[in-house]
């Protein structure tokens, strides 16, 4: 890892993506993720990469489709309203089994909303958003370091499963500076080695085949029996991912927890502050922080429900989205409470403490 530098989340994830072998990046500017696109515009030409500022988010995601179809490490990024525009393309990427990385630096919604941090796109990221039966792997960082680390992780997961991977961040993580260190930059040879696994399916000049027969990349299957097989194959893949890629953090989880909180991303940072302050008062509260929000760590929540835990409380910067997954995991065993904050505002540790104390 490199020496630590102080960097904004937006810039750190861009640098990490370049180091992870991203040489193709297509996007359209939007606050609060514009530093990401600026960084890529400045740095990609220096590593013989290609940045295109597309004419729209829709164009950008379809450029991603093209580059992914050629088996290259490709990325796009935007913020909430821009991600909505990309949804058709994301469904096509999922349908065509195309590895790619999409970053959402969430802001307040719905509609144009505002430009402050929010978590209102959880449903969109984890339950679809685009049409059809598909899933994305969704990674949700809660620090600048984790945001940066997730770039290479996202590319590796995308390659491994041939699936679009989303990093679900927010305006606070994008705009905040924290110390970050980087993994070494992959060499051109190392990138080529990583991309080799795509050669048996991706579009490329194929000199071995005299008739220049190309691979077909498509999400259209007009024959229902063929489409059924295709979608069932996707299901198999999603099951495999659910078995392998659950990731979460336990914070102050122990046998004497009175309350267990569930929060991800920025919200989890505030909840940690609250838990530290409550522990000084002798109130024992734990936190389950999903790091990957799809697949969801349901068992991690189930496993901490014991006699002393009175309630589970979910904290999100929305009206209550992930709380539905928490309720599925808890399955009626004990009450599940919720505190949300909307409009691009972030709750303070005091508001979180009050919610917890009210439920003791």
């Amino acid at each position, binding site marked *: 890892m490199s020496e*630590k530098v*102080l960097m904004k989340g937006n810039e750190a994830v861009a640098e990490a993506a370049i180091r992870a072998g991203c040489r193709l990046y297509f996007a359209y500017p939007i*606050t*609060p993720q514009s530093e990401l696109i600026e960084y890529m515009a400045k740095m990609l030409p220096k590593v013989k990469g290609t940045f295109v500022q597309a004419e729209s988010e829709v164009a950008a995601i379809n450029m991603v489709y093209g580059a992914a179809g050629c088996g290259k490490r490709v990325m796009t990024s935007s913020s909430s309203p821009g991600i909505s525009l990309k949804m058709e393309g994301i469904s096509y990427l999922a349908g065509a089994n195309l590895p790619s990385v999409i970053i959402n630096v969430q802001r307040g919604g719905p509609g144009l909303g*505002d*430009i*402050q941090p929010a978590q209102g796109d959880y449903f969109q990221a984890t339950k679809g958003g685009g049409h059809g039966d598909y899933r994305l792997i969704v990674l949700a960082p809660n620090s600048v370091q984790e945001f940066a680390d997730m770039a290479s992780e996202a590319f590796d997961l995308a390659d491994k499963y041939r699936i679009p991977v989303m990093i679900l961040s927010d*305006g*606070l993580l994008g*705009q*905040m*500076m*924290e*110390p970050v260190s980087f993994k070494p930059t992959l060499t051109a040879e190392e990138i080529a080695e990583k991309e080799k696994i795509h050669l048996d399916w991706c579009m490329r000049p194929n000199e071995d085949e005299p008739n220049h027969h190309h691979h077909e990349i498509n999400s259209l299957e007009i024959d229902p029996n063929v489409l059924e097989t295709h979608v069932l194959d996707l299901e198999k893949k999603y099951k495999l991912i659910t078995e392998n890629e659950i990731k979460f953090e336990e914070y102050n989880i122990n046998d004497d927890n009175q309350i267990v909180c569930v929060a991800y991303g920025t919200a989890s*940072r*505030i909840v*940690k*502050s609250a838990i*530290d302050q409550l522990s000084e008062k002798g109130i024992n509260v734990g936190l389950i922080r999903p790091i990957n929000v799809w697949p969801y760590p349901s068992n991690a929540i189930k496993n901490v429900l014991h006699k002393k835990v009175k309630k589970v409380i979910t904290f999100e910067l929305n009206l209550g989205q992930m709380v539905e997954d928490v309720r599925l995991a808890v399955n009626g065993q004990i009450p599940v409470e919720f505190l949300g904050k909307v409009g691009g505002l*972030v709750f*303070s*540790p*005091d508001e979180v403490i009050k919610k917890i104390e009210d439920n003791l």
Partner: protein
Amino acid sequence: MKYEIISSGFGGQGALTVGKFLAKAGMKEGKNVSWLPSYGPEMRGGTANVSVVISDKEVASPLVSFPSILVALNQPSIDKFASATIDGGLIVFNEDMCPNGVKRDNVEIISAPMNQIAKEIGSIKVLNMVAIGMVIGKTGIVKYETLEQDLTAFLEKKNPELLKANLKAIKKGIELAQS
């Protein structure tokens, strides 16, 4: 040890930079740090501000609601954040831009005519460095040497004159805070 700082002023006064150099120096000294700016459509004449946390432990919430240190480069910053500053905290303010001063009990208050001092040093730009000097002179939150190293690496080739003015301003701030 945990310092929660809000630095605030008009756009262009360098309030965000105060936070940035403190956070960077904290990082170089092995502390955990975060720097979170207010961003978005600030009203003309309003405040641009930044939340900085410098701590021995992992930084949980990077949002500062109740600062232990407030750096106020103009009056609206005092009006907005002085009442939220914790008891026993520190308020550093710029006399030249804060005609009404601070009305607060139970906090330590130090101030200086930062615009005037900066002009005397040779550049109005370094008024925020006077503020940094006052903060570290009072609290020892980071070392002068760490700031000097960082500023030197940043400015030595680009603008040696401005570097000199910056360092002079920090030293003047330290001197004022300790006198």
